[in-house]
């Protein structure tokens, strides 16, 4: 009996290992225009126990400072344990678990101006309950960015999937912000930040690459 039990355990372990590999391939390599995989796709490929497979993968990724991030449809994060229906409609991504240092962020290829502009645009839209007129966002960004760059930057944030606009020229947060940005943490950090009395090196810094720091 013990032998059989050990054999079954080994077999089960093998099945989970192969499912984890398959899940890793699906999550790391883009399959569609947008990255990430829908729950129902994972269910089809891995079987009904895919939430368990993702849990095991998430634990494994912890040591690599990565995580499996779940983004529920229409930002409706369930209060308790998500239902299978909610999971099947959710999108799963692999994201960085911890934080990047300013020096590391040069790897992402963002200029400090553009990254700061993105942070301001996202924070401003969050403060306006998830939507703001494009004109207002342009005005806020125009305080510190040259006017010719403001429109280009907003279009770029839209193209990357951080923001989206509608025919009424309203800006909203888009899928990439929901996947990558911890909105609550961003607002908390911003409110806790100490306001500087002077503005050192701002003019001198204009347009400087993080890489140059």
């Amino acid at each position: 009996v013990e032998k059989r039990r050990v054999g079954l355990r080994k077999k089960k372990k093998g099945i989970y290992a192969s499912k984890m590999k398959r899940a890793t391939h699906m999550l790391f390599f883009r399959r569609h225009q947008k990255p990430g995989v829908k729950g129902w796709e994972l269910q089809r490929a891995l079987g009904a126990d895919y939430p368990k497979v993702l849990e095991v993968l998430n634990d494994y990724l912890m040591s690599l400072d990565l995580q499996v991030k779940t983004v529920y449809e229409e930002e409706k994060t369930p209060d308790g344990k998500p239902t299978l229906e909610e999971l099947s409609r959710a999108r799963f991504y692999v994201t960085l678990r911890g934080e990047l240092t300013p020096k590391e962020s040069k790897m992402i290829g963002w200029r400090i101006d553009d990254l700061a502009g993105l942070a301001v645009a996202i924070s401003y839209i969050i403060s306006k309950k998830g939507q703001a007129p494009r004109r207002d966002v342009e005005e806020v960004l125009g305080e510190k960015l040259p006017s010719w760059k403001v429109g280009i930057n907003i279009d770029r944030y839209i193209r990357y999937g951080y923001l989206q606009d509608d025919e009424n020229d309203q800006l909203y947060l888009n899928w990439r912000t929901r996947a990558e940005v911890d909105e609550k943490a961003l607002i908390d950090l911003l409110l806790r930040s100490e306001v500087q009395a002077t503005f050192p090196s701002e003019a001198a810094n204009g347009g400087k690459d993080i890489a140059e720091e």
Partner: protein
Amino acid sequence: VKSKKAQKKVGAEKLQRIIEMCIAIENHTIDPFLLNVDDVIKVVQKYFPQWDESEELNLDSEAICHLASVIKLQSEWVKYRSTSLYTDPFLLEGKLMQATKDEIVRIFLGAWHPVVEFEQLSLHSIAEALRYWKRLLPIKERWPELFVPEVAIGTTSRDELLRQRVLSAKVFSEEIESFWRELKEKIKEKGAKGKMRYWDFIGTDTYEKTVERAFLASFLITYGYATLEIIPLEEEVFIKPFAKPLAKIRTQQSISIPIAVTCENWQKWKRGELD
């Protein structure tokens, strides 16, 4: 009689303005709290006894309907203010204005967890691509040059263009509207829960007609007359008409749903195998 008419006119104009303001609020271009609901209700109450024609009553009910949407938006705003995500926009704006770029970047990096992706070729994908390349016919064979005979310039008539199906007998918008009515009638007859299988709606005796119906159905969906309901696991697609065409704002990115209306699929549908 004249003064009653004039009063009615003023009342109708006021209702029209209320509706326009409500629509602007629904489109998120105006703060929902700029509308004083009590004042609006007083206006609606004041003029209601004077309405006796169906158009006037319609205007009244339209105003009430839009007002209800505004109240819903106001209640959503109050709910949001009570959540932990709510922060005074002015306070936040002040912080954003006063922080330096470096500081904003430092704060953002504390809350930013970028998506991780691999962009890498595998040996398997290269081998697959090479196999595909070997099988691929030269472009000259795939796209043979069309032989277009030279013809003399001549005149044609509208009837001839209609016969050749270059022109349609109906204006396109009329055609879409009548197709929408047909969908609603078919659902009454054969549908369940206000929807029916996509293929059961577009499918007809001939493949050509089926393609034409699929083409029209795509416009029904794009123009907001109907929507598609997809059950991914069962691979079932349903079409569902709206009671009124939607003129909604795009709060989510529009998506395209490709449905292959191939001759093979049409034959399968005819045989009842396309479930």
